[in-house]
C-alpha cells in the first residue's frame, strides 16, 4: 500500500506549494479541500483499510463541509483575492520549498523515520504545519488565516495518521468536532468583522495593544 501513500504524500507537497503560491481565495479553498480529502484517505492506507467510518466522516468534514463554509463566507464578504500579502506569492513558494527541503534533510539526517509508516510522512507533516503557520503570518485576509489554520491542522493530522496513533473513536470525533466548530465560529466572526470593520483585513484589527495610547471609548 505504500506506493499509494507515497503518491498521496507527494501530491500533498505540491498542494502546499500551490497554497503558498496562489492569491485567489477560490484556489486556496479548493486546494485545502483537496488536501483534506487526501488526508482523510491517509489513515485508511496506513492501517490497511480498517476505519472506513472515520475516513468517510473525515473526508466529509475536511474535504467538503469546511470548504463549503469558507466559500460561503468568501461570497458573503465579497472577497476574491488576497490583495497585498505581507510576503509575495513568488517568495512564499520559494520559502515553502526551502522549508520542505530542510525538513526532509533534517528527518533524513536524524533518522527519525524508523518506525513511521512511510519516510515521507514526518517531513511532510512538518512542512504542512509550517505552511499553515506561514499563511497565518504572511496573509492579511481573515479567510486566508482560517485556511492557514486548516492547513496547520491538516499537518497535525498527517503526523497523527503516519504514526498510526489510536485515540479511540470518540476522541477522534471530538477532535474533528472541535475543529469544525472552530471553523464555524471563525466563519461567523469573519462575517461580523466584515460588517463592523467594513473589511476583513486583519491589519484593521489593531485597536487593542499596549502602545501607551489611552482608551477613552465608552461601552
Amino acid at each position, binding site marked *: 500500500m505504500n506506493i499509494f501513500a507515497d503518491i498521496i504524500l507527494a501530491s500533498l507537497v505540491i498542494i502546499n506549494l500551490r497554497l503558498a503560491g496562489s492569491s485567489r481565495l477560490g484556489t486556496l479553498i479548493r486546494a485545502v479541500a483537496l488536501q483534506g480529502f487526501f488526508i482523510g484517505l491517509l489513515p485508511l492506507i496506513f492501517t490497511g483499510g480498517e476505519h472506513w467510518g472515520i475516513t468517510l466522516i473525515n473526508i466529509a468534514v475536511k474535504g467538503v463541509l469546511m470548504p463549503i463554509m469558507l466559500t460561503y463566507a468568501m461570497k458573503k464578504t465579497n472577497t476574491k483575492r488576497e490583495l497585498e500579502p505581507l510576503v509575495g506569492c513568488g517568495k512564499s513558494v520559494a520559502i515553502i520549498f526551502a522549508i520542505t527541503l530542510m525538513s526532509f534533510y533534517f528527518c533524513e539526517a536524524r533518522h*527519525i523515520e524508523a*518506525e513511521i509508516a512511510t519516510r515521507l510522512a514526518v517531513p511532510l507533516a512538518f512542512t504542512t*504545519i509550517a505552511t499553515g*503557520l506561514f499563511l*497565518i503570518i504572511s496573509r492579511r485576509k*481573515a479567510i486566508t*488565516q482560517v485556511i492557514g*489554520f486548516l492547513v*496547520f*491542522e491538516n*499537518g*497535525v493530522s498527517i*503526523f*497523527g495518521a503516519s*504514526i498510526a*496513533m489510536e*485515540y479511540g473513536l*470518540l*476522541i477522534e470525533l*471530538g*477532535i474533528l468536532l*472541535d475543529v469544525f*466548530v*472552530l471553523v464555524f*465560529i*471563525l466563519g461567523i*466572526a469573519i462575517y*461580523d*468583522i466584515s460588517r*463592523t*470593520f467594513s473589511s476583513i483585513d*486583519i491589519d484593521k*484589527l*489593531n*485597536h*487593542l*495593544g*499596549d502602545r*501607551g*495610547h*489611552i*482608551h*477613552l*471609548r*465608552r*461601552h
Partner: protein
Amino acid sequence: MTLSKLILAITTILFVGCTIHSIFYIGFKKRTILYWILLPLFFAAMCAACLIENLAGMWVAIEATTLLSAPLICYHYTAESLEAMWKYLIICSIGIGLALFGTLLFMNGWYIPGFVFVLAGYGTKMGLAPFHTWLPDAHSEAPGPVSAFLSGALLNCSFLAITRFRDLLPEEHIVFADNAILALGLFSLFIAAVFIVRQTDYKRLLAYSSIEHMGLIAIMYSLHADDFIFQSHIAAHSLTKMMLFLVAGNLLLAYGTRNIASVHGLGRTMKLHAALWMLGILFICGMPPSALFFTEIGLVCSAPIWVASVVMVLLFVVFAGMSKVAIGMIFGQGDKLHSAEAKPISWTLSIVPVLALVVHFLVFAILFLCCFYA
C-alpha cells in the same frame, strides 16, 4: 489534595461566584440567553479538562473551552471585543493545535520536542509569555464575570495539562522540562512587570497580573516548591483575581471607561468598591494578610538565590505599577476636567466580591494557623 482536585474545586467555587454575580451584572434578558447557555457549558468543559485522564481527551476538552468562551468574550459585541475574540481564537487554536502535535510526538516517544510543543501549546492557553498575547485583549474586553472566570479558572486548567505531561516525562528529561518551565515563568513575570508599569487600562492591568501569577506558579512548580504553598498560591490567586475582575467590571459599569487616568477619588464616591479595589490589589501583590504574602516568601525561601532575587525585583516592579494605579484611582478628587462621572450601581453587585474577600481571608487565616501550629 491532588492538583486536579484542587483546580476542580477552585473552578467550581469560581463558577458559583461568577454565576451569582452574573445574575446581577448580566441579568436575564432575551439577548443574554446565549450567555447563560455558554457559561455552564464553559464550566463543564473545564471540569472535563480536570477530570479526563486521557491526554488526547483532555485536549478535546481544553479546545472546547476555547470555543465555548470565545462568544462570551465577544459579549459586548463591539469592534474591540470582536477583535479580541478573533485574536483569542486564532492564537489559542494555534496553541492548542501545537499541543495536539506535541501530544502526538510525546506519545510516540519523542519526549523533548513533544514536551516543548505541549508547553508552548498549553502555555498559550495558560498565558505564559511569549505565548500570552491574546490574554490582555480577551480579559480586558470580556464582561467582568467572564474575565474573572477566564483568569481564575481557565488558566489553571491549562496549567494542569502541562503538569500532566511533565509528570509523564522519563527521569532524564525532567531537568530540561523544569528549566524550560522556569524560563517561561521568569519571562512571564518580566513581561507582566514591563506592561504593568505605566499601564493605562485597569482591566489590562489585571490581565497582566494574571500573567505574572501564572509565571509565579510556573516558577514554583519548576522549583518543586512545597505542595501546600504552591497550591495555596493557585487558590489564593484565583479567588483574589476573581474578586478584582468583578470589581473592575463594576467600576466599568459605573464610570464607563477603563482608562485609569479618568477614575479618581473612589474613596469618596464608591467607598465599598474603593476598599475592595485597594485590598484586592494589595492582596494580589502579596501584601499581608493575603495568602500570597506567605506563598511568595515560601518561593523565595526555596528558590535558588538568583531566582529569588530576580523574582523579588520583578515583583517589586509589579507592585510599583499596581500600587500607583490603586493610589491614583482611590485617593484624591483629581482633575475634574478629565475625570469621568460615576453612575450609581446596585449594591447587589458587591455581594460576590465581598464574599470572595471574606472567604479568602477566613480560609487562609485558618489554613495558615493550622499550618503554624502543626
